[in-house]
């Protein structure tokens, strides 16, 4: 029998949405950290939550996991009311903090036992759960090692084990791979896919946009607003025909010259490739002539010119630019 990480079936599980909030608002004094945010997260999906620092991501997560009461708006998380059933939300969701937040002077096992007891799991149930998770997360050999002596990747897995101790339906992961090497990142994502395969919903924040591409759906947060919420391919489609790639010989003068073109929003450099970004969709052929001329006039040489597929990173930058333009206006 294949040991499963599947959460215990709960009454709310027939509901399609694990997170369902409307008009969620939270202000601190005069500052509105989260402004009328409405969000749906489907059961069993990996939801990527993106946005620059200070956009209101942390405040949103704090409201969603029952730490912070919203000043306005309402909703349900894991089937419980965000305002009045915060205790139940805490009991049915897990949280893995951005920085390692377990006790470094306790062993893996002691850390696990502690968090298990906090959720009221003792005795045989605890032992079974620990065996299962430690095997799956490859922690069994190090169960008597103090958490502070573990490697970065190992710590992250222990933190994940402790967040999963009570078989939550929903787990919040705040930058789970920050500071972890690519190999460990890959392993962690494999684990996350396993979890979601078995029905656990994962709510992940990250600054690695390649990781965001792995999510089923992503939400972009900016200045307290959720400005986009869709699957990565659909989101990227929005930017289709906004970008042109040009391979050039003498990059820096070319970059400077193209930047000065009136309808170009931004130009970035990737090796020998200039990525030219337009605020509106264009047919790249109509721009070919002027771009080539500008670059040659700048004393550079065009080797190749072609339309570009946008990445989430481009999207991220584009959204940030929109904000900057709006603020300037």
């Amino acid at each position: 029998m294949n040991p499963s990480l599947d959460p215990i079936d709960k009454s709310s599980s027939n509901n399609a949405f694990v997170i369902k909030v409307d008009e969620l608002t939270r202000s601190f004094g005069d500052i509105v950290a989260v402004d009328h945010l409405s969000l749906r997260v489907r059961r069993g999906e990996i939801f990527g939550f993106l946005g620059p620092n200070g956009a209101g991501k942390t405040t949103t997560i704090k409201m969603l996991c029952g730490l912070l009461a919203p000043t306005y708006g309402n909703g349900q998380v894991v089937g419980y009311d965000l305002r009045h059933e915060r205790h139940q939300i805490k009991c049915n969701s897990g949280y893995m903090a951005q920085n390692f937040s377990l006790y470094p002077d306790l062993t893996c096992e002691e850390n696990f036992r502690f968090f298990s007891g906090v959720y009221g799991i003792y005795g045989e149930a605890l032992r079974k759960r620990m065996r299962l998770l430690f095997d799956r997360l490859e922690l069994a050999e190090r169960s008597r090692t103090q958490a502070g002596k573990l490697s970065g990747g190992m710590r992250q897995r222990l933190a994940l084990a402790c967040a999963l101790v009570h078989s939550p339906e929903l787990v919040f992961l705040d930058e789970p791979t920050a500071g972890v090497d690519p190999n460990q990142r890959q392993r962690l994502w494999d684990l996350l896919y396993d979890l979601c395969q078995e029905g656990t919903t994962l709510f992940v924040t990250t600054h690695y946009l390649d990781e965001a591409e792995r999510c089923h759906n992503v939400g972009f947060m900016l200045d307290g607003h959720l400005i986009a919420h869709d699957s990565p391919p659909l989101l990227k489609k929005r930017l289709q025909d906004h970008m042109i790639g040009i391979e050039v010989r003498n990059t820096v003068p070319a970059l400077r010259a193209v930047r000065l073109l009136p309808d170009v929003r931004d130009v970035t450099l990737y090796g020998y490739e200039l990525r030219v970004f337009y605020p509106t969709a264009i047919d790249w052929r109509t721009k070919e002539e002027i771009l080539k001329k500008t670059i040659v006039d700048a004393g550079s040489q065009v080797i190749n010119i072609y339309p570009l597929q946008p990445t989430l990173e481009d999207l991220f930058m584009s959204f940030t630019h929109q904000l900057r333009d709006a603020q300037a206006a």
Partner: protein
Amino acid sequence: MLRNILHLSIKEFIQLWRDRRTLIFLLLTPTLLTILFGYAVGTPKATAIPTRVIDLDHGQIADEYIKDISDNETFALDVRRHAESSDLEQAEQDLKKDKLKAIIVLPHDLTSSLLEGGRGQVTGIVDGSDTFSAPTILRELGAVAVKNNLKLAAGYLLYEGIVKTQAQAALRVAPVELKTDIRYNPELKSQNFTIPGIIGLILQLLTIIIMATSIARERERGTMEQLAVTPLTSSEIFIGKLVPYFILAIIDTINALVVAWLLFHVQLAGHYAVVTVIILMFILGSLGIGQLISVLSKNQNQAIQIAIFYIFPVVILSGAFNPIETLPTNVRPFTYLFPLTYFCRSVRASLLREASFYDVKYDLLALLAFVIATFGLSVFFLRRQATKG
């Protein structure tokens, strides 16, 4: 609720056990400090004060005077008989160099002027820069002078034949006798006063510093954030973290009391129940203050700074070493800000005067107020921080 508290306490115990150095420090310090301070801090009483007697008189009266001074153990005497005026100059130099605290000058005409029926004059030169010894010197010099005068007067009565015996003479010159009756600490043993203060002060220091770092440490490590998303409530966290240190503080108190009893023979003479309740309330109140500091601090460093800032005035203003009566009256209201003040007062009352619950009711109420206020405020702030972001 109870299970959660116990669970947290066990975790806290394991952590304390891992941190062996801190644990040993916590268990040994109170005992060691009680021993150290028990010997070092008596009630201020100066003895063997370096004093030089310059006898320029070379006569019988001077001999008598020197004998009377020698009987007084306040002074460590260096008697220069057959002294010259150069000896006096030398002595004044030594006083300036702090080799001496006082000089007693018996002038050259002391015996002769008395025999001629005149009045003699003895000069005491005292170093006023030492404000601690000077009053003692002056008081004891006065006592010596009185004793010497009475003896001279009695001798005169005998010599003139007014009285027949020494006893009659004594009755004439000092007809009213002062009889003192010292209650509650008849041997005036200074440890009976200082030991409760020392134990209280050590407990205060320890509980506040150890508690001040507890929640601040969780916050610094980010584990507070992790606890906040669990179903644990603020009061469970508060009490769970307090219990291990409460037990530790009780062990420390017992250790210190045993040391006080074995080494200084200070016993819990009063009602055991009264002393126990006072001690428990005091420990809880002190832990409460520590927790409050911890809750209000962003990190351990800040917590330690606030703790030290709080503890420093406690040492001086709580009456642990010196009675509150020695403080200026305008400072005295501040002494009520510290649980140690109430602890010292009530423990001394019950140790030395066998005070009952009724006798120390105000002190107990004050300690109770500290416990309620610090516990309430800590949980209030914890809860508010958890939901504030």
